[in-house]
């Protein structure tokens, strides 16, 4: 529709909508951009104020400090490990369960379905789960990141619906050729489910990458802390400094020992850490966006 053909009020409305959408995108993007710029600017220079859209005193020292810090690097490794292992094992376990549940002749199928659905509405809550994890000996154990999240009932239902929609002929002909159920699952069902696995796998991976709360209650050992939790501790330390009027000062040496030598400020170091933590998501984001959107649609079809 041509702009010229529109009436007077419509023109105002369309212009207002475009202006509003641009402003909204600006507010969505500016915080990340500003953090990026602060992370690329010299800390003491940032402290003078006025750094907004462009670096004034460009430096990479904030990043080199972050990457030189053994504790942060270790935290990154933990996050990467838990994301990779956690996602792969969770998708494997959940699809396996979903494949079994998709068989109409499965004995006890009705019972199992109710058994799983109930947990979507009721749960024990924070403290009973905490006490359970404690009595299982999963405190300060890397497996606490993996095992409790192996089965997602929601994902299982989506997978099951998808598996049921696959043509039954494929499975039958494989079985006639002597393929067992395990063979069908591994060689036919999984390869055919690429897009669904990609979608739900991405959501699972993001949840692993972003999880900061579970480690704060289940992990006390520094060496097992994922990077989001470490970042939160840095922020707390910084907040404490700011409260005592010391935010332009150097960061709490407990976490970043080299900071004081290079006259870096906590703000610039935190910005660099934020960028490093969110960069993987920003980097893969353009390529996987269509899967995210698909994921919402898959989820909503279930309702």
């Amino acid at each position, binding site marked *: 529709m041509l702009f010229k053909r529109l009436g007077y009020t419509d023109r105002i409305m369309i212009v207002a909508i*475009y202006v509003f959408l641009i402003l909204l995108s600006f507010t969505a993007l500016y915080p990340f951009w500003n953090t990026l710029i602060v992370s690329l600017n010299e800390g003491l220079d940032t402290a003078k104020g006025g750094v907004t859209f462009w670096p004034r005193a460009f430096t990479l020292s904030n990043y080199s400090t972050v990457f030189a810090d053994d504790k942060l690097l270790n935290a990154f490794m933990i996050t990467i490990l838990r994301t990779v292992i956690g996602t792969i094992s969770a998708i494997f376990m959940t699809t396996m369960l979903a494949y079994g549940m998709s068989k109409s002749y499965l*004995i006890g199928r009705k019972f199992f379905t109710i058994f799983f659905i109930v947990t979507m509405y009721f749960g024990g*809550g924070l403290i009973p*789960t905490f006490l359970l994890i404690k009595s299982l000996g999963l405190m300060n154990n890397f497996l606490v990141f993996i095992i409790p999240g192996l089965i997602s009932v929601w994902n299982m239902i989506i997978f099951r619906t998808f598996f049921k929609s696959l043509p039954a002929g494929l499975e039958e002909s494989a079985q006639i050729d002597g393929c067992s159920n395990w063979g069908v699952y591994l060689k036919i069902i999984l390869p055919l489910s690429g897009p669904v696995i990609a979608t739900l796998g991405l959501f699972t991976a993001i949840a692993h990458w972003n999880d900061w709360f579970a480690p704060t209650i289940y992990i006390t050992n520094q060496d097992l802390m994922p990077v989001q939790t470490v970042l939160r501790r840095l922020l707390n330390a910084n907040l404490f400094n700011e409260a005592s009027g010391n935010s332009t000062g150097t960061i709490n040496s407990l976490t970043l020992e080299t900071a004081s030598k290079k006259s870096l400020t906590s703000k610039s170091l935190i910005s660099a850490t934020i960028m490093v933590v969110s960069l993987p998501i920003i980097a893969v984001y353009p390529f996987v966006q269509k899967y995210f959107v698909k994921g919402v649609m898959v989820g909503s079809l279930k309702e």
Partner: protein
Amino acid sequence: MSQVTAKEHYSSIPPKRRSVNEKSFFQRLWKQMDIQLMVWPGVLLIFIFAYIPMYGVLTGFMDYNIFTGANIFENPWVGFKHFEDFFNAPQFWTIMRNTIVISLLKLLVGFPAPILLAMMLNEVRHRNFKRVIQSITYLPYFMSWVIVGSIVMSLLSTENGSVNMLLKGIGAIDESINFLSMKDYFWAILVSTNVWKDIGFNSIIFMAAIAGVNPSLYEAAEIDGASRFKQMYLITIPTIMPIIIIFMILAMGSLLSAGFEDILILAQNPSLRPVSDVIDTYVYRVGLQNQRYDFGVAVGLFRAVVSVMLLTIANYLARRTGNSLW
């Protein structure tokens, strides 16, 4: 014609043949053992991590000794003592008020916002422009609350935070305001951060609903000379109203979930507690951090029971409106 009763009919079949057709339960189970083995690990995991905590809820009715082992029944029963303690706690009304006010504010602002965004995006005819706007507005949704919180803190910081710089620049304030330590601003900051984070992603579902509107409705309206604004108001909104109502009612079911991670991250300053403490954060602080497990479980259970009641009512309402199309 001889009448054959069912009993006679079955007894006339030789016993051997029957056993071939109707295998025993265990034989059938054995034959599908491969499939059963795919299901059991999941059942076991869900039993451990979902059902055992449900049974752990019983500690809310006990005086729990933190040194008890796996058998919680070593602890003495105390009935509703912890529930009464919570209802009589000095913070009880503050916490209930904060919980309900915060979740109502989130609903009031956070619910219409993505619908409006979807309607605005629907008016955009430049496909690339639309795609860029969508990509940008979805992005914050995928960031953790730690990152969002730290970015918000940095923006609102008194030391060269962008917001204070902007307000000083346009002359609205003379002195920097420490937004995150003042009670007056907390609800606004919390709600707007939530809207900022979720608006784009939550608009997807409404975009899909709008895309499903029959285009001939718009064409007919255009021939009749309806303006774009009128089309929006008279066609788009009424057609997507059923889905709006259903989402609205389901959102009411979570009235006692005012948020948890966002509040933990944004309200680190203890002076904010009179406005920031909600049931979930209270359970975490008093129950877990102060190790009053039994009390925390009781408070959590209270929340869960009310939530299930609300959800049941909401579901009932959703079903009723689902039948009566707008």
